[in-house]
């Protein structure tokens, strides 16, 4: 739920409860005031009746008190407390009974006691309460509508800078060299937020630049000595007086140097992928690239008499060509390296799946450790980073990779 919705909900609940409580209090207060008013009116009336009796020495006729209904009942009681009570008022002109308020008091006339009851209609008070109630209700509804509209439009307007910042953050690209800038606005809190975000962005970009430089420097420092080793060997073999055994030693050094170089490149590549430094994504035809790879590995495949069974549907992905190339290289390389002579490699590409299957040792590999760094088979001459790189490239593009051993085939399934 959005913040403005939360806020609307809270404010409307509070408003409604305050209005409800207010209405109840209001109702009782008005009733109380009206009762008081009626009581004082009735007191005055009964005073008038007493006065009339004293003056005229007889009970007044009902007509003398126009709307009010006065009844006199003889009683033997010596004392009746004056009291007010709610009753039913029967207007002689109208049939319907109405709510009324009455007073009873004791009147003595010539030694005879009478209980006098004066009843007045409450209709006017009720009417007043109804009017006030209606006005209050109308005001409450107006208030709720205004609150709702305010929350809906004015609040969302107030929050616009926040959403601008949020969108800018979503679009934030660490490798973008432009300075990350957020628009200034009228709200202090959002300006402060923007300032903090901008600072953080520039710090992150700085760190990123440092990392990039470190990566490059590390690469430079390690590869130059390797270049020296290779160049020295290239020079050394020009001496044809060397014995075959010495050449053999040199060959081993060549192999070690080239393996070290590959290892170094792989590690740097992993750093790059993990830090998301490869961002040259483009639309690629995966089936086309796999076809190219099959041709590229053709000699390697032929030399071990491996049968390639391909079933490729057209499929395009958005990814870095460089990384997809490495991904396919590593998968192919593994499928051939860990294969048996006269074995087979099965490649299946569908709209959402890429499957590499190869024959090999009749043994399920350890699924959990397979993709970890430097995990490799006992006979493997590789760097032990190939599948880690594959896994990382898949992660980068949110592809899922899983290994299984089915029908004597080692199967790598990538869900695109």
């Amino acid at each position, binding site marked *: 739920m959005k913040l403005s919705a939360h806020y609307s909900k809270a404010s409307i609940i509070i408003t409604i409860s305050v209005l409800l409580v207010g209405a109840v209090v209001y109702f009782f207060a008005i009733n109380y005031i009206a009762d008081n008013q009626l009581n004082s009116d009735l007191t005055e009336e009964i005073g008038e009746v007493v006065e009339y009796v004293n003056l005229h020495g007889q009970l007044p006729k009902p007509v003398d008190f126009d709307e009010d209904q006065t009844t006199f009942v003889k009683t033997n009681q010596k004392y009746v407390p004056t009291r007010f009570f709610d009753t039913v008022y029967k207007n002689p002109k109208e049939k319907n009974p109405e709510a009324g308020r009455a007073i009873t008091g004791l009147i003595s006339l010539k030694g005879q006691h009478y209980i006098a009851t004066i009843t007045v209609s409450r209709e006017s008070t009720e009417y007043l309460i109804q009017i006030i109630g209606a006005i209050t209700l109308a005001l409450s509804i107006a208030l709720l509508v205004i609150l709702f509209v305010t929350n809906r439009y004015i609040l969302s307007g107030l929050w616009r800078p926040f959403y601008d910042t949020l969108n800018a953050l979503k679009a934030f690209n660490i490798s973008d060299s432009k300075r990350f800038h957020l628009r200034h606005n009228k709200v202090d809190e959002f300006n402060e937020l923007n300032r903090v975000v901008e600072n953080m962005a520039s710090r992150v970009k700085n760190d990123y630049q440092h990392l990039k430089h470190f990566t490059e420097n590390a690469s430079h420092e390690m590869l130059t000595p*390797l*270049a020296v080793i290779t*160049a020295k060997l290239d020079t050394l*073999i020009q001496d*044809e007086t060397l014995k075959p055994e010495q050449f053999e030693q040199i*060959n081993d050094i060549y192999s070690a*140097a*080239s393996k070290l170089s590959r290892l170094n490149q792989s590690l740097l590549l992993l750093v790059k992928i993990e830090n998301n430094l490869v961002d040259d994504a483009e639309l690629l035809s995966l089936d086309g690239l796999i076809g190219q790879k099959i041709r590229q*590995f053709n000699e390697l495949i032929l030399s071990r008499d491996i049968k390639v069974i391909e079933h490729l549907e057209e499929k395009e992905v958005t990814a870095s060509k460089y990384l997809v*190339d490495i991904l396919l290289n590593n998968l192919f390389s593994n499928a051939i390296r860990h294969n048996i002579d006269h074995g087979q490699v099965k490649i299946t590409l569908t709209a959402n799946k890429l499957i590499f299957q190869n024959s090999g040792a009749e043994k399920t590999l350890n699924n959990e450790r397979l993709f970890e760094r430097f995990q490799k088979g006992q006979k493997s001459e590789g760097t032990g980073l190939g599948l880690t790189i594959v896994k990382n490239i898949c992660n980068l593009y949110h592809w899922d990779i899983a290994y299984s051993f089915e029908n004597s085939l080692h199967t790598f399934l990538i869900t695109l």
Partner: protein
Amino acid sequence: MKLLIIEDEQALRDNITHYFNEDGNICESCSSLLGAINKLSNYDYDCVLLDIGLPDGDGFAILEYLKAQMKNEAVLIISARNSLDDKLKGLNIGADDYLTKPFHLAELKARVVAIYRRKAFNSNSKLVFNEIAIDLLGRSVDVNNLPVTLTRKEYDMLLYFIANKGKVISKNALAEHLWGDEMDMHDNFDFIYTHIKNLRKKLLEATANDYLRSIYGIGYKFSPQ
């Protein structure tokens, strides 16, 4: 061919100089940005081998300098930075090729020869080695004026050997040249042998001299004698 080698690692500089010198080339070298600009302002070279990471600055400055001075040296960048950005930047500023460390000297030589040829003989696309004539544009080979049909790999191999004539080339270097270093050859060089055998057979059948020699255990040599 007159070469300037700009490389701060002395051992590497010496080996490159030594490797290139034997072929009638003149090689000069320096180890810093300032030294390089000093030499380039005084002399003209056919080709410059440029290491991007120099102790006193970025090697790209030399490319900028050459461009500003409208000098016509062919430039090959040798860099330890295998970053696509650097590669594109270098090629955009005017470098002719880009080679990542570590590399084989034979590969370096082949690349230098190729860019030098492109630059120096724009109109003349014929490469002649004794009785072997190669049409670089048409990618066709004649021996004693008779055409020989070579596969793409055999043709690449022949050019590589001619560029490195008289040198022993290791199988590693040859494999990397033909299949690229991103493809792990699993130290299996059997199929190089197949290509070599075919190339040699085709050249001999076309009555060329037998220039190719196998150096036991290490590689091959293509020598004029």
